[in-house]
């Protein structure tokens, strides 16, 4: 019975506060991450040599180094150059830059899977390249990129726990504090695990229904 009261009265209130911070981290990181992903993907496929190699370098750096190292650079490294971020801001910037790099890979693959005839047809109708990308290529490519980008967003939900390493007290951090104070690691982290599993399941469901919703009948890939 003591366990029940411990979980209900002592553990859950701070965990809920932590969950709100976690959700904030996720929600704030997704849209700018997607925008970076789209820009990088378009830059790599359609940019001139300079732009495309810059984008490739960006993606290589952020996919080749651990997110935690990136967060350390942002939070502990940049202050020595006079740039200060709050823990939450540093975490959001880190998640955005990193997930942008991963998104760009999925979106690039999707863009390249659109047949080149689409671009030629758009240009032959008198569209500029920019217009063709915006109105012809991207609406098709982004739909195809949804499964990959969904994966990345689910990763983001889980990796949001790394914000704790730069002292942002989110779900894992809030739990760690309680666990060390009461020395109940198993109980606390099992409850946290359940919350993460719930979040991951809900996000998966939402993204699946988004994919169904925006599907164009007759244009699915391989179905």
């Amino acid at each position, binding site marked *: 019975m003591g366990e029940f009261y411990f979980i209900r009265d002592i553990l859950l209130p701070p965990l809920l506060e932590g969950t709100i911070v976690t959700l904030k981290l996720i929600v704030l990181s997704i849209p700018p991450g997607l925008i970076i992903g789209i820009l990088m993907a378009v830059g790599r496929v359609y940019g001139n040599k300079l732009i495309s190699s810059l984008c490739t370098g960006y993606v290589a750096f952020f996919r080749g180094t651990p997110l935690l*190292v990136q967060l350390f650079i942002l939070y502990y490294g940049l202050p020595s150059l006079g740039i200060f971020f709050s823990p939450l801001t540093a975490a959001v910037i880190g998640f955005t830059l990193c997930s942008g790099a991963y998104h760009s890979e999925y979106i690039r693959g999707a863009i390249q899977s659109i047949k080149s005839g689409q671009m030629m047809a758009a240009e032959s109708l008198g569209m500029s390249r920019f217009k063709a990308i915006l109105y012809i290529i991207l609406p098709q490519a982004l739909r195809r990129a949804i499964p990959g980008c969904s994966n990345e967003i689910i990763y983001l939900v889980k990796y949001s726990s790394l914000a704790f390493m730069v002292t942002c007290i989110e779900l*894992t951090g809030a739990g760690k504090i309680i666990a060390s104070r009461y020395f109940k690691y198993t109980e606390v*982290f099992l409850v946290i695990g359940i919350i993460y599993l719930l979040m991951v399941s809900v996000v998966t469901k939402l993204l699946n229904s988004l994919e169904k919703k925006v599907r164009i009948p007759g244009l699915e890939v391989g179905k």
Partner: protein
Amino acid sequence: MLEDLAMLYQALPYLLKGSIVTIELVAGALALGLVVGIPMAAGQVYGSKPVSKIISFYVWFFRGLPVLVLLFLFYFGLFPLLNLDLSAFAAAVLVLGLRSTAYQSQIFRGSIQSLGSGQMLAARSIGMSRFKAICHIILPQALRISIPGWSNEYSIILKDSAITYALGVMEILTRGNFIATRTYKPMPVFLTCAVIFLILTYGGVKLLDLLEKKVRTPGYGGRR
């Protein structure tokens, strides 16, 4: 700038020792994942219903939780509860390995299922047992197809190994953090850590690409 370089020159051997720890961590976790992941994949595809249910649950659990939560749960919670007195390094290898098992089993399952059921049927029809067919017909083909996915898994585990910093495992980032606090020069130190990780990531991926080319069966799987 010059003193930064002098500091890095002094710190580099210490950091590189950390990269050996990182490599040991990654190798241990990948090996554990490989050894357990292959039978798990076979079990999920060919096993009875309860077996494949249990495996699916295992995979769902380890793929649904953040590494950091798993590390805390096992190192501070479950291992002491089971009276296992493990060092941080051993606990980290075990947790990363158990998690990698879940991911690797799905990589192998995908390749096994991509083979087409005709292979199994043909093997059975020439009198092989199910077990023999899996060992001699299915796996040699499936493992070859799995290499690209496996190289992905390598780079994920490598990057996740940095999170064992939270348990105080003496890998690259933990050592980098010590140096950064000691010298008060976080920027050059963490950038150096990033470069070491970059080299390890792309070096490993290159090696696995070579392996894939080397073991490829000519005329087979030539989609790429």
